[in-house]
């Protein structure tokens, strides 16, 4: 789960990372008040879940409270990549002498959290990784022991040479790791971590992504979820435990398992169709899941035909068939439907389908060819 910059700042601040004074406001008058209280140059930043806020005009420096109010008026309500800005952060714009990058990600290859630091801070780190990878220092962390003070100091020494600055950076490096593990993050980064001309160290921009699997033990973070930008369909899918991604095509598909769902999309394309979505109904199935899935797909006006492709393992085909029958009983789908149910309890499912004059296709190829043809005929 993504959280906003101001929320990430809040978490880092709790763990003792030095963060310049800031406040989040949804009114230009409040932006002026905060700027007055800070009493020096501030930065006004849009709080939306997209990258490239600066390029879109969502980040502005203000020398005076007047300017802060003016920028807040312009940014609030602004549309950035389809998302409306509802809140801005007004923060002390500290003077910058050096900019560094410090971040931690979960690394698939070493199966550990990996610390990354770079003296090339303040720019897109993926850009640095692509062009000058030697400027990024990586350090896998033992998940049991955590990050030692000595390790933190070694990492800090890659960034600066002034002893007391290195010491202050090392403190941030250690506290960022505490925040990373303490909030069950999958990514935590400070970019930039700045040193001011009077040699103070501040975390300016913070980004934290939370491991969805661990949200159950962080109700305070779960409460930070910002539903703006989440469409009705996405919210319903999430609440029912379905993974749904809307795409641009016209062949709807409901599949169990992420790999098979992607493959179904690929095979639809192979047979000349365009998938309308990715939808994985997940493991243990219930009739309600199938009903919700059908509701979500049919509410997409582009969809011209629907494929239900289930290979039962932990999902039982008879559950799926019952859900399908219940969904169809409630109201007509009004679109051609192709069903392919095979695997665990496929026989029972076949009987349920037969009672309702439906029949499962034999193979995925057969089912996909048919559903693509049906979409074409509707066009």
């Amino acid at each position, binding site marked *: 789960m993504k959280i906003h910059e101001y929320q990430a700042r809040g978490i880092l601040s709790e763990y003792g990372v030095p963060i310049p004074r800031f406040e989040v406001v949804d009114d230009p008058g409040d932006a002026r008040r905060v700027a007055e209280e800070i009493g020096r140059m501030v930065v006004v930043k849009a709080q939306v879940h997209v990258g490239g806020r600066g390029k879109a005009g969502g980040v502005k420096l203000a020398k005076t409270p007047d300017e802060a109010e003016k920028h807040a008026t312009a940014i609030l309500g602004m549309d950035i990549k389809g998302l409306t800005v509802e809140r801005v952060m007004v923060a002390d714009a500290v003077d910058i002498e050096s900019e560094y990058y410090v971040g931690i990600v979960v690394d698939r290859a070493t199966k550990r959290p990996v610390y990354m630091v770079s003296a090339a801070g303040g720019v897109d780190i993926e850009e640095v990784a692509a062009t000058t990878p030697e400027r990024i220092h990586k350090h896998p962390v033992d998940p049991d022991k955590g990050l030692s003070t000595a390790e933190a100091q070694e990492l800090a020494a890659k960034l600066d040479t002034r002893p007391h600055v290195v010491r202050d950076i090392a403190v941030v490096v250690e506290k960022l790791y505490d925040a990373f593990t303490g909030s069950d993050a999958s990514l935590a980064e400070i970019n930039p971590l700045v040193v001011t001309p009077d040699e103070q160290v501040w975390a300016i921009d913070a980004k934290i992504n939370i491991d969805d699997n661990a949200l159950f033990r962080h109700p305070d973070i779960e409460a930070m979820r910002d539903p703006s930008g989440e469409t009705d369909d996405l919210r319903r899918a999430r609440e029912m435990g379905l993974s749904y991604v809307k795409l641009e095509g016209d062949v709807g598909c409901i599949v169990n398992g992420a790999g098979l769902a992607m*493959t179904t999309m690929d095979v639809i394309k192979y047979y000349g169709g365009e998938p309308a979505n990715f939808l994985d109904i997940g493991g243990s199935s219930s009739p309600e899941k199938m009903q919700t899935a059908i509701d979500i797909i049919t509410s997409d006006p582009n969809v011209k035909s629907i494929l239900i492709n289930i290979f039962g393992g932990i999902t039982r085909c008879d559950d799926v068939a019952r859900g399908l029958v219940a969904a169809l009983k409630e109201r007509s789908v009004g679109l051609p439907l192709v069903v392919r149910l095979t*695997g665990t309890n496929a026989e029972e499912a076949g009987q349920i389908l037969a009672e309702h004059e439906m029949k499962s296709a034999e193979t995925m190829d057969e089912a996909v060819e048919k559903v693509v043809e049906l979409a074409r005929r509707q066009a």
Partner: protein
Amino acid sequence: MSIFLDEATRVCVQGITGRDGSFHTRAMVEYGTNVVAGVTPGKGGQEMDGIPVFNTVREAVDATNANATIIFVPAKFAAGAAMEAVESGAKLVVVVSEGVPTLDVAKIYKRAKELGVRMIGPNCPGIISPGKSKLGIMPGSIHSQGGIGVVSRSGTLTYEVVDSLGRAGMGQSSVIGIGGDPIIGTNFIDALEAFEKDHETEAVVLIGEIGGTDEEQAAEFIKAKMTKPVVSFIAGRTAPPGKRMGHAGAIIAGGKGTAQEKMDALAAAGVPVADRPSEIPGLLKTALGR
């Protein structure tokens, strides 16, 4: 032969009295798996279908000599159950449960390495050695014994591929679903290495998907170390960048982890890549010179 699992494996089921645990225990027993014990904390002393239930995995291992365990407990308790399993003395731990916190998995993986325990998963369908034993949730009936090893990041897509193999009369030595989470106990290279050594395995099918660079690393390993033919399929060539496709690991981020990169890496290692799962048997026959 087969890899990691055979008829001698003595299985303990964690979460044996739950809805999924009991259902799949029955399916495993029906398939011929030697299920010797179950664990549900608080239900020690009871039985499920004549299988003794214990409070802890250690008790189950001590009493029944179980050497493998499979975990069906809900996400919130799965990390604890997996750590208990790794430290119980069992040498093979299959974590079917999904939704296990990643930093917990990192710790469990480390402990498993220290103790020489093979962990498969989490968030995986498990492993089957057809005709011998099944330690997982895959439908047993679609499998048949033979010379093809299958390793996959996906669950149901693996069944799809096995179904295609079966239709072409190609049996399998072992089929292993390694899971779709960011940190997993057994990766492609671990399975490829085992298949390369296994006398029953003649060729291997590697089923990958978008996200990460595991397929690229597997391609390097294949080029350097594998003498047996490998064919492949990569899911997600139509997936848009920046959207997570179900699995936590299945995302094209920062322009990395695309299907095309993976297909190119595999092709460069001499691995034919199928456009559809149903093409895999044909590619295998060509690779085996049949």
